[in-house]
């Protein structure tokens, strides 16, 4: 797209294709304003995404919100914004400095950015003066000043004010007092802009029909819903960004929708740390609950010992890792796909795990329930690998389908089953040859129901054993179980047209990859086949994809190419075909980035 020139802005219009970037201070209440902008566009039928870029801080530090609206449905992050709203005086110089050439700057008049960026389009707005007029009550001004830029943007870019009003009411969940305060502020900004600003840029939005049947949701809320409809019954958690909101949503939904005769059909417990959170899952999964916790990388590290115990003692539960950037505290409020290896092979000894990898809220919903099924079916910890971008950002999504498949509770022997067997059973016997043994729940009213659960070596009948043959045959059975899992985990999504080059990706790189693929084709004449991974272990389809392509790019958000390493390790005969497309600065991936890397490697090939 050509950049608009400040000098000759009105020669054309750009409709329903913009990136709007709002800079504010954390804790200033700008979230509501930004969500109103996002929702208004969504309600006008324009495909959108909304990404928060926030500091690890409660109040005062700068925060940014980026909305991308695009008629063609491209909603990945873009490197440069078209419109920058500078509401934070502390960062306005930098915000203006980093704006692309020709960008539109909207800012408090006194900041005087016109001299600094003569190559941009300027709308200086006396926000401070206006808020004094718009809001007589001094104490409330801080709360509504951000609504002024909503009004200004709405006027400049042709938002439908009816939709803006509706968005405010949705966003404020019908709280009339707040609505009565905010709507006039937006209208005031709108009116002021209409009377005082001269349109000097080409951007405008128009109603279209791109969002029929869609919703806006954060991934964490979607996963929470999936778990609730999947019958989760014990939830434990220890707060950590970006996973906290998952359990908070879950708590909220469960308390609203899973009450029976005034009593809870679930337990939500805030544990003292992640070790306790996962220890509780081990107890709860063992005793027959559908147990879940969410955490992020540091929590996974703490949970490792018990994850290994549960793998070996064969106890079902689900952990969602909403990944963030870096080891230790790293960049706690940024995104990364950096915990792949630490999840796939979490813990010590011979361990490997089932991991499902959603890329959209709808998939997060479906995989929330599916993870509970897989855990009980395979009697093992199952992970959902999400990340901050999916978990905490706002995504447009198709409505979720009500799950109709019955729960898969796995091989459980109850009293009647034990009676039929005359109590003849062994906890770790591979009766069916699929590596999955039968279990009983504590409390089963049968004298032969009990067995001894331990992390030490055991026989097929669960007796203590240090014998080499017992150890090895048990480990082999666990490997067999994993082989069985390869046939039951979510299969990859493959688009193959017989091209020589393939591209593997997963999770939240999806939107950028989709957009990049179109650009590679239309702008560079490069055509690639696609394989979106949805689970570990890799299924046969992944192997076939690698087999049938000459070279395969692996797109991922980490420095060392962890997915590529895993593919190499699990499917070594294709190792020579893999090339990494990497991105690891904490920000979501952009299509341009993928295009650049692929084009340069394709040239060298």
């Amino acid at each position: 797209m050509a950049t608009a020139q400040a000098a000759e802005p009105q020669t054309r219009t750009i409709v329903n294709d913009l990136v709007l970037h709002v800079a504010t201070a954390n804790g200033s209440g700008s979230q509501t304003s930004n969500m109103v902008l996002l929702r208004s566009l969504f309600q006008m039928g324009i495909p959108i995404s909304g990404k928060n870029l926030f500091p690890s801080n409660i109040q005062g530090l700068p925060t940014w919100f980026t909305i991308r609206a695009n008629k063609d449905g491209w909603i990945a992050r873009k490197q440069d914004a078209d419109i920058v709203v500078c509401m934070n005086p502390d960062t306005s110089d930098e915000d203006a400095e980093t704006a692309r050439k020709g960008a539109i700057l909207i800012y408090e008049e006194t900041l005087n950015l016109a001299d600094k960026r003569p190559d941009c389009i300027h709308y200086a707005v006396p926000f401070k003066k206006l808020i004094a007029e718009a809001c007589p009550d001094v104490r409330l001004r801080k709360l509504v000043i951000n609504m002024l830029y909503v009004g200004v943007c709405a006027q400049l870019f042709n938002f439908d004010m009816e939709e803006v009003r509706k968005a405010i009411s949705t966003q404020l969940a019908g709280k009339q007092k707040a609505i009565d305060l905010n709507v006039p502020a937006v209208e005031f900004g709108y009116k002021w802009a209409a009377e005082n600003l001269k349109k000097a840029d080409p951007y405008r939005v128009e109603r279209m029909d791109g969002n029929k049947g869609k919703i806006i949701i954060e991934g964490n809320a979607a996963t929470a819903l999936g778990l609730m409809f999947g019958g989760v019954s014990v939830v434990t958690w220890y707060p950590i960004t970006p996973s906290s909101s998952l359990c908070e949503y879950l708590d909220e939904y469960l308390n609203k929708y899973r009450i029976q005769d005034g009593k809870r059909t679930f337990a939500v417990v805030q544990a003292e740390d992640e070790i306790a959170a996962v220890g509780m899952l081990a107890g709860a999964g063992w005793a027959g609950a559908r147990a879940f916790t969410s955490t992020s990388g540091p929590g996974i590290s703490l949970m490792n010992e018990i994850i290994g115990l549960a793998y070996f003692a064969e106890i079902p539960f689900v952990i969602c890792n909403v990944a963030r950037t870096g080891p230790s505290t790293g960049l706690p409020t940024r995104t990364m796909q950096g915990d792949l290896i630490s999840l796939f092979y979490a813990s010590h000894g011979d361990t490997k795990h089932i991991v499902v990898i959603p890329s959209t809220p709808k998939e997060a919903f479906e995989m929330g329930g599916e993870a509970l099924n897989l855990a009980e079916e395979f009697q093992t910890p199952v992970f959902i690998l999400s990340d901050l971008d999916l978990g905490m950002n706002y995504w447009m999504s198709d409505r979720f389908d009500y799950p109709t498949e019955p729960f898969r509770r796995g091989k459980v022997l109850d009293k009647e089953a034990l009676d039929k067997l005359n109590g003849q059973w062994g906890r770790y016997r591979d009766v069916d040859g699929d590596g999955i043994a039968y279990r009983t729940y504590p409390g089963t009213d049968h004298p032969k129901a009990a067995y001894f659960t331990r992390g030490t070596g055991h026989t097929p009948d669960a007796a203590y054993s240090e014998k080499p043959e017992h150890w090895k045959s048990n480990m082999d059975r666990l490997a067999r179980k994993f082989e069985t899992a390869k046939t039951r985990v979510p299969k990859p999504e493959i688009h193959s047209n017989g091209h020589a080059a393939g591209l593997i990706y997963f999770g939240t790189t999806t939107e950028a990859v989709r957009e990049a693929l179109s650009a590679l084709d239309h702008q560079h004449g490069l055509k690639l086949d696609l394989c979106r991974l949805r689970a570990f272990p890799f299924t046969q389809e992944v192997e076939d994809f690698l087999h049938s392509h000459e070279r395969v790019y692996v797109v991922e958000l980490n420095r060392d190419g962890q997915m590529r390493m895993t593919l190499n390790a699990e499917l070594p005969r294709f190792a020579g075909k893999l090339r990494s497309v990497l991105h690891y600065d904490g920000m979501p991936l952009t299509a341009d980035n993928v295009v650049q890397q692929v084009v340069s490697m394709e040239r060298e090939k």
Partner: protein
Amino acid sequence: MAGTAEAPSTNKVGLQKKDYAGSKSTLCIGCGHDLITARIIDAAFDNSIKPENLVKLSGIGCSSKTPAYFVSRSFSFNSVHGRMPSVATGTALANRNLKMIGVSGDGDTANIGMGQFVHVMRRNLNMVYIVENNGVYGLTKGQFSATADKGSKLKHGQVNHMHAIDLCALAVELGCGFVARLFAGNTKMMKQVLQSALAYKGTAFLDIISPCVTFNNHEGSTKSFPWMKSNELAMQDIGFVPAYDPHYEEMDHGDERVIKLGDGSKITIKALDKDYDPASRTGALQLLAEHHESGKVPTGVIYLAGETPRFVDHLGMVDVPLSSLKEDVLRPSKSVLDEVMDSLA
């Protein structure tokens, strides 16, 4: 068996003592832990506990191995070092009807597991939490644990210079409603208290001095059999009256304290030394502090409050175990999903 043999006695749930047995102990001969195991079997039998309603949980250590040696008909979970309390918490969440026995060691609880110990004491689960306290790590061959007394010596002469952690004091402080210190060599008191603890519907914490004959039974140890034999201060004569006792009502308890337990049975406490009131929290803490200085080890019920609501009560859960809930209850209807979807559109 020969027809002439006397029929072995059965308890109220129709089981014999042997139904409460476990597999053979593999601990060192003479280990204090085995004495505790034997009394747990007695107490479970005498209380007529149905093994199917009991679960055993433990961490790691010689002590934590012992659940294998009693009541094999009960489920058991030998988990990881120091984390038994969280596993027990999860078990209670999934099935609120289970009575739990948690067995731990002083290392398992006071060292690696201190975090989980203090938090589980705040929760009030339906559990008897036993620390088989020998002042050392038995299983890793005799290093000091955090309950070792200041000045006590290891086998090869190393002296502990740090203050001991008093788990009973912590338990009282953190709101545990039933706290006792016992000596594995005082089997009579141990059995009565175990029976009472099993009848109590809440967390009962028992710190049982249980000498390690292999690594901590020498001169200079304050957790040895000889030391405890001469320094135990048995504070009380404790009795247990099960609810099914035919003389339950008319029993004259004289000057004993009688406290009714959750399952209807009674614990009777007769003070031996001075009139110690186990219902007083500050009194309990004072007693423990005083005896740190004297070097004597008071045994008996240190603190016993009335029963208070349990963790699962505060959580407002349904009365049946969560593990028994099926899809009809666990999956909300389609209209719920529609409602949520509409609110997000």
